């Protein structure tokens, strides 16, 4: 397919007087992995539901794989997979039975495809286990399998790794890369900024609006108002209280076990150390930090 896989054009959804999604426009190209970030309730899930034709837009339109998402829903759904935040898996069925059941829903009765899907998500050998007994990481892989059983060209994943431990998250993302390498377009929402770093482009939504959609590198260079610094100190609390607004410091937050601040570009280490000392703080180390998407996200939140 030559054209974009998703085209959202002024896509809007209101619930009463609440505007859940507010005139957003973007396009996604074939084979892209696009991450979608934003606070709970900012409209990420509503966007996905419109792209899948599950909700009618109040305004604007979505064209997905060349079809109008709302008026040609069947065509879209035959070609798109969806793993929702609260995926429904039958706990009293086995892994295989769940896949066969959902395969049937999509008209896939081909045993070979079911086996292939099991292999794809790494569940071979677990076919006959009851789903209720699986760990969150395994359930999540089964949910991905269910979303994949009909060989979709486009995959929507809505917070697929929420509540999953770091090891399982890693395995899950390996699967995403494999799919993307096979040409599947992936649209994924997440609260994990490290996952967003792996996406080719990242969209940031807030209060129904799409604030930015760009590569991680471009977001960091365009959105961050200054340079990022890591300040190690035993006085975290004092740092959080005293540093904001002091000298030229633009933002102060926690990062791991230390403080992370944003200062105007070009401010030297010496100058920053002077500002810190003027607040009466003792820093054990002040180091230039590498910008992350978390910095970008936090910058957007404060205005």
């Amino acid at each position, binding site marked *: 397919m030559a054209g974009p896989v998703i085209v959202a054009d002024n896509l809007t959804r209101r619930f009463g007087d609440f505007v859940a999604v507010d005139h957003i426009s973007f396009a996604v190209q074939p084979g892209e992995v696009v991450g979608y*970030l*934003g*606070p*709970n*309730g900012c409209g990420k899930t509503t966007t996905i539901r419109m792209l899948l034709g599950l909700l009618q837009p109040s305004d604007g339109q979505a064209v997905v794989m060349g079809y109008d998402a709302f008026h040609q829903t069947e065509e879209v759904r035959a070609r798109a997979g969806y793993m929702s935040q609260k995926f429904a898996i039958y706990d009293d069925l086995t892994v295989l039975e769940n896949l066969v059941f959902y395969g049937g829903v999509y008209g896939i009765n081909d045993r070979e495809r079911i086996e292939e899907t099991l292999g794809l998500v790494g569940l071979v050998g677990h076919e006959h286990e009851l789903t209720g007994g699986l*760990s*969150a*990481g395994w359930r999540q892989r089964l949910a991905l399998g269910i979303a994949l059983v009909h060989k979709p060209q486009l995959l929507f994943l809505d*917070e697929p790794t*929420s*509540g*999953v*431990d*770091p*090891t*399982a998250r*890693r395995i899950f*993302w390996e699967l995403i890369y494999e799919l993307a390498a096979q040409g599947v377009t992936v649209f994924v929402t997440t*609260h994990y*900024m*490290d996952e967003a*770093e*792996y996406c080719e482009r990242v969209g940031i939504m807030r209060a129904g609006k799409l604030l930015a959609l760009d590569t*991680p590198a471009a977001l960091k260079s365009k959105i961050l108002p200054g340079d990022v610094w890591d300040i190690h100190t035993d006085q*975290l*609390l004092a740092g*959080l209280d005293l540093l904001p607004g002091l000298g030229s410091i633009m933002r102060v*937050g*926690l*990062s*791991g*076990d230390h403080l992370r601040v944003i200062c105007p570009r070009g401010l030297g280490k010496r100058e920053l150390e002077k500002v810190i000392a003027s607040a009466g703080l003792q820093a054990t180390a002040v180091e230039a930090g590498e910008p*992350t998407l*978390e910095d970008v*996200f*936090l910058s957007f*939140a404060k205005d």
Partner: protein
Amino acid sequence: MTLLVEALHLRKTFGETVAVEDVCLDVKAGEIFGLVGSDGAGKTTILRLLVGAMQPDRGQIEVCGYDISRNVEQARARLGYLSQKFSLYEDLSVLENIRFFAEVRGLAASEWLPRSMEILDFVGLAEFKDRRAGQLSGGMKQKLGLATAMVTRPTLLLLDEPTTGVDPVTRQDFWQMLIRLVSNSNDGNNGQQVSVIISTPYMDEAARCSRIGFMRAGNIVAGGTPAELRALLTGRVLELRGEPLFLLRKIAGEDKDVEDVQIFGDRLHLRIRSGTAKEVIRRLPRQVTSGQGRVAALGMVPAGLEDVFIALSESSHGGS
């Protein structure tokens, strides 16, 4: 230093499943103790045992100086618990929710009313006190959850994955509040120091804890300060940058001394066998070059907690 929690040799089974096996744990005043581990590793069961919501099959628990098996009421009066799926009454206002939880805990209006305003102020919900809980954003609900757990002025807060599925801004706010609570000078709890036991899937949060217990299959397999845990992998993590990433990954993955390769954004972390750093650093760039790739940087870096987590969770799986 006073021990707020002392748990000895806890065991808890559910039918055939051993959820917690021989766990010992202590938490001192003013600490934030982090429980990390895979799903089903036993974190939630431990928290439930500590609040006396269930009885261990074996072992002893003292919380705030009270033996849980004998004086559960006295212990509970001193702790606040926020369960993973805490429920708020969506059709009650913020203040009414706090009132409900306060009255359940036996507080009279003369106690809870001034107290709740103080907490709402602290968590930043004072101006929303009359808003219905159902109308709050996800982050505000989280704060209300914390407020309900704090209404009794607890000395110990037990928080079960309070930030799972929560955006980075809300996580920042939440942690800044926790740090204020455990510091002596906090204003959120009437100057009284609070200690915290928290479970979390986020390694950046774990790095902020005073001490961490890594759980696996019902056991605490490693415990200590974040620095002590990171030291487990001293000299065993290399950072590799260059391109193309897939080639670097493949070559590193095939190296005999590389145990694990992980992508961290645009770079790779390699976990290597002890004492092989020099050889790997010498060997890999040559192989990458002969594979038509380019190494921009390769060197030893301090291990992060995520490296440690993955190493610990792999070491026992026995290849499964």
